[in-house]
């Protein structure tokens, strides 16, 4: 009996060791770091314990800029990408020919390297002394003025970032919603048709309620994912995001930790905890709202 007990733990041992060192210990440590004031990573000493790190971060203009960027990004991309994914999935589900082909094409961005394809978006949108760039060509054709989307005005940069983010996150959402739509009981639709229900009413009274759990799942993961945006911004604007004014909260954490402005694990920890608190409260709000509206 004793040997049997031991064996179970032995099989678990590698997982427990790795999780212990790289998940559980850091989780405690990050709170310790965030409370140590004036931590010096070279001498590993600190002056005192308190909330100074949080106050520093909350007064840092770079952090406030990062929060603003992240919130704008979240508010634009989450509803837009979910809505667009719903439209695309509805269209996909209403056809039979070529459905697999379209599905495969739409999923392609999921497997691409965010950094690498971001470069393509950069050259598509960039305007330099040598070239107008592809997108400006389109804008000109429709009678607009050329804009530099990469080094130009704030709204233009935000537009590219949102556009690229949506391009990157849509494959996942389309995939989930397409399979959710396909699994709705066809009898419900047939019954509604016999009753002569209008398509709009069918959509509102049958389709949406039946797939509402999946929509909410996507909204929640979408919020979490968008709040953690970082590599898309790096791909478009380069590693010095503060200079571009396009930093995100996660970017701020990493900049504080490492790089030209790095070496402040305490500030990084405080910022990471603030991010975690924001994400956690929004997820809780989402769950509360979903309890009211989602039909399981």
């Amino acid at each position, binding site marked *: 009996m004793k040997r049997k*007990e031991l064996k179970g733990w032995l099989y*678990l041992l590698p997982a427990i060791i790795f999780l212990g060192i790289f998940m559980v210990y*850091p989780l405690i440590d990050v709170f310790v770091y965030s409370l140590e004031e004036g931590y010096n990573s070279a001498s590993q000493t600190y002056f005192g314990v308190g909330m100074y790190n949080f106050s520093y971060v909350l007064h840092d203009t770079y952090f406030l800029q990062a929060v603003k960027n992240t919130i704008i990004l979240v508010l634009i991309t989450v509803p837009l990408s979910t809505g667009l994914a719903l439209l695309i999935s509805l269209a996909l589900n209403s056809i039979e020919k070529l459905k697999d082909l379209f599905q495969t094409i739409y999923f392609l961005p999921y497997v691409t*390297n965010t950094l690498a394809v971001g470069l393509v978006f950069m*050259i598509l949108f960039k305007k330099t002394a040598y070239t107008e760039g592809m997108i400006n060509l389109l804008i000109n054709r429709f009678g607009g003025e050329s804009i530099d989307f990469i080094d130009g005005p704030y709204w233009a940069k935000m537009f590219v970032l949102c556009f690229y983010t949506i391009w990157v996150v849509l494959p996942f959402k389309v995939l989930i919603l397409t399979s959710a739509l396909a699994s709705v009981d066809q009898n419900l639709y047939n019954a509604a048709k016999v009753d002569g229900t209008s398509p709009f009413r069918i959509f509102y009274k049958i389709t949406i309620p039946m797939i509402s759990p999946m929509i909410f799942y996507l909204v929640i993961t979408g919020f979490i994912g968008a709040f953690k945006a*970082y590599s898309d911004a790096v791909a478009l604007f380069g590693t010095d995001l503060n200079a571009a004014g396009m930093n995100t909260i996660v970017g701020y954490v990493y900049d504080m930790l490492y790089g030209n402005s790095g070496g402040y694990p305490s500030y990084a920890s405080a910022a990471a905890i603030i991010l975690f608190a924001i994400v956690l409260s929004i997820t809780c709000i989402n769950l509360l709202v979903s309890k009211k509206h989602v039909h399981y």
Partner: protein
Amino acid sequence: MDQNLDYEKIEKTAARRRKIKNILVYSALVLWALIVLFPFYWMVLTSIKSYGSYSSEYIPKFFTLQPTIQNYIDVFTAVPLLKYLGNTVIFTLATTALMLIVITFAAFAFSKLEFRGRDLVFAGFLALMMIPNELVVITNFVTITNWNMRNTFWGLILPSITSVFYIYLLKENFAQVPDELYKAAKVDGTSDLKFLFKVLIPICRPTIVTVTILKIIECWNSYVWPRLITDDAALFLVSNGIQEIRENGMGRENIPAMMAAVVVISIPLIILFLIFHKKIMEGVSRGGTKG
């Protein structure tokens, strides 16, 4: 007579309406497919334009009549792209292989072995799934630095060897294999290890393949951790390599060569996707996330 005509009329309008709806739906789908595919087309197109012809195009052209492979030669000679690719292959294979060992053993313990505290530990593991990477990366960075493992493969690999989510996925799959099989094997005197490798793993092969592919994609695209842990270009992975090429290599303006590098980096995963797209899409819809 009149009624017959009416039916025909109604059928005709219905058919026409269906046709119009189909045309609309297909054109919307084609439009989005174009938006998805266009960046890929553009990167291949730019990569086969010569530097001279690219720079002289103030208004970019949608095709080229003089394709060149010079850019592809450049990315392998002027910048160490081959080195980045090699590093990424080593990192991806080592991480995936080690992770498979760790998660298989853990999933086996959780699903088939009985010992006190098992369910409690499993609940603890599940709770860890909610911890975002951003929260633990700071200490991990300090840990790896203290162990003098910066700019080493071990430093890159160690933190991503376990994945609670994949343990969970595999445990659910192992649990579906009837316990009778395990008991019968025990009666026959088969050792646990032998049972695991000869019975459980072959039965659950589809799930293991899915996990492997998802992990390979994740490793190939990982950027944040490698960036923190390596500043020596000899150990860069492709994501950091492409960033390095963009900021310091080949000159900022040599966009065609940069695009050639992007194509080279993207091709392995696109091939993997084309071969396994059914498996990948099925695996992701079972609970993969991105971001």
